[in-house]
C-alpha cells in the first residue's frame, strides 16, 4: 500500500468501517510512513472535535416531561 491508497482509506478507517484485512494493510503502511500517521491523527482529532462539540446538548426537562407522559 502506498500513501495514495492509504489516504483514500482514511475516512473509512476513522469511521471503523474498513475490513480487518485492510486495517492491517493501512497500519502496516503507517508503521513506515510518519506523514500518513500525522495526517490520520489530524483527521481523527477533527472527528473527536465534532463529536464533542455537537454531542453535548441534552433534551430540556420540559420536553422530557412531555415525552414521558406520552409514553406512560
Amino acid at each position, binding site marked *: 500500500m502506498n500513501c495514495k491508497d492509504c489516504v483514500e482509506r482514511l475516512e473509512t478507517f476513522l469511521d471503523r468501517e474498513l475490513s480487518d484485512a485492510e486495517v492491517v494493510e493501512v497500519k502496516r503502511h503507517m508503521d513506515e510512513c510518519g506523514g500518513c500517521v500525522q495526517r490520520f491523527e489530524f483527521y481523527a*482529532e477533527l472527528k473527536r472535535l465534532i463529536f464533542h462539540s455537537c454531542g453535548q446538548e441534552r433534551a430540556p426537562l420540559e420536553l422530557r416531561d*412531555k415525552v414521558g407522559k406520552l409514553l406512560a
Partner: protein
Amino acid sequence: MDLLSDAAVSAEGLATQTPRLVVMPDSDEDFAAEAINHLDSLYRGALRLTRDPEQAQDLVQDTYVRALRYQHSFHTGTNMRAWLFSIMRNRFWDRLKTQHPGDVSLDDSRDDFPLYERVKDEADGPETLALNRIAATEVVAAVEKLPALHREIVQLVDVEGFSYKDTAEVLDIPIGTVMSRLHRARQQLQKELYQYARESGILAGKGTE
C-alpha cells in the same frame, strides 16, 4: 443523484409495508423504557435539522407520537434508535418540502478541500493544536451552515456513531451514497472551519486568497 428521492418513503409507508406477523414488543413498558433512552440523541438530531430549539422540541415530540402510532411496525431486537431517527427525519423532510421546497438539494461541487495541507502551512505550531483552539460553539455554528442533508449525515455518523449500514437504513439510500454524501459533507464542513480559523486568527493565512 444526491437529491431527496429518499425522503419519499415515509414512516407511514414503512408501517403499512410491514407484514402482519410482526412480533409484538414484550410489553408496552419495554417499548416505552427503551424509547425514552434515545431522547437526548433525538433532540440533538432535531437541533441539527431544525437549527431551532423550539422547533426541535416540536419535532421530537411529534416523532414520539408517531413512534407510538407505528409501534407495531417496530421489530423487537432491532435498532430502535435508527427506527426513531428515520421517523424523525422523514417527518422533518415532509414538512421542509412543503415549506421551503428549494432547500432540499445539495451543492455538489467535486473539488476536495485540502484542510490538512492548509493547516500545516498556516498554523503556528502542531496541526492538531490549531484544531483544539476552535470552540465547540464554533463547530456547531459551522455544521449549521451546511445544507440539511449534510448536517444530518455528519450528526448521525460523527456524533451519534451510526454505522454506514444503519445510516443507509435511516436515510433510505445505498451505502455507497452514504459514503459519498458523508465525504461531501465533511469537505464542506472543513471549508467552513477553515474560514472560521482564518477569520479568528487561529490560522495566519499564508495561503492564497
